């Protein structure tokens, strides 16, 4: 899952640095992701993982790192399975 998240970040987050060097808790916003890019990231993640983030998840803290994105995706897949 992390590899796919990294791929989406690489294409859409438009960071100042090489996404392969990102640690999983590194702050994407501090690494140069603009609010415009973050919306593209949200859309791309929804497409890549075939999910819909509910509005309550559309907040900075959910998309600020690889780890937080993974947590959100896992939460959605658990909800879908239940």
């Amino acid at each position, binding site marked *: 899952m992390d590899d796919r998240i990294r791929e989406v970040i690489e294409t859409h987050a438009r960071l*100042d640095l090489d996404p392969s060097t990102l640690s999983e808790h590194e702050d994407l*916003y501090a690494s*140069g992701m*603009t*609010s*415009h890019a973050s*919306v593209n990231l*949200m*859309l791309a993640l*929804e497409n890549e993982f075939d999910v*819909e*983030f*509910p*509005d309550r998840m*559309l*907040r*900075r*803290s959910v998309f600020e790192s690889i780890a937080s994105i993974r947590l959100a995706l896992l939460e959605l897949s658990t909800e879908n399975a239940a």
Partner: protein
Amino acid sequence: MTVTTTPQDAEFAVAVREIAEGVAAGAADAVDRDNRFPHEAVDALREANALSAYVPSAYGGAGVGFRDLAGACFDLARACSATGMIFAMHQIQVGCIMRHGAGTEPFDGYLGSLVAEQRLIASVTTEAGVGGDLRSSVAAAEADGDDVVFEKKAPTVSYGAHADDFLTTMRRAPNADPGDQVLVLTHAAQTDLEPAGSWDSLGMRGTCSPGFVVRARAPKAQVLPHPFARIAVETMVPFSHLLWGHVWLGIATAAYDRARAFVRAQADSAGTVSPAGRRLSALAVELHAMRSELRAATDEYSAMTTSPEGVEEAHTVGYAVRINMLKISASERAPAICAGALLICGMAGYKNDTPFSVGRHLRDTLSGALMIANERIHTTNAALLLVHKGS
């Protein structure tokens, strides 16, 4: 949600209303006609310590709440649009310094001098070459020893020639991306304004907002510690849309007041309400809707600013969509209400020298759609709505 009004809040509201009715209203026509700064109203606001009203008591300010700040914008704009807008824009700058500089020097010291000297702060956010995008800069802060120096070509700087201080957006450094911005406080003595353009405008003439090439040198410590991306989302954008909204509401209410007075005068002489007069009811519906939207959004934001979770809420897609919609709605409703008032007052409203003139109000409110252009906001929201489900 509990609505608390402190004695300071009430005292402030009364003082502002007296200035609006006793000072600003009488000068409004001259300010508009002569394109001039509303000196008498701003002096009176200084005298009443209103420029530092939002500064907490720990710094010597009155510490009034955001809701009362919005109410003051409404009262002042109902009397004189320019005074209301100047007051609103100044308070937006105060909010940015308070919420993103307080607790650090030199900003703590600055808040003290703001209270003692009633300094007026102008905003230098517009820039040639960025297509009206607040969140994008060409100008950059260049380090020079312990100072930063910058030059910015700003096409619109409201009351720039009358300000004591400036808050300017720019890139963090010459090699930074356009969106990697900071906000820098400079005092008039540190800032050179080279005039670049005039301000013979359709409306909001008394805000005196020509262009300038702004050049300044200031100690590095005068760069606000938070990135502008954060300042914009948490403070500058919501403050602007809510306080501007109250200014437009104040102007629209003034136009409504005149339409109502016209219908009343007609009714008194003819003994009946004319068909045009019945439009007053439709106008009241529009005004009520606008007021309700602004009040709800102001209450929401006031509550948000009281807790870290609330402030975090400003960073959600949902809040961005809502505050953008509020701005579009308020800036479109206000001129529509003024145009409705014109239809009611007829020629008496169209002429500039009757008690029922509403031309100034209509011209002034037409600026709303251009201040952070509604077309740009629609583009932003259209993108956000792809991911925001609105559920």
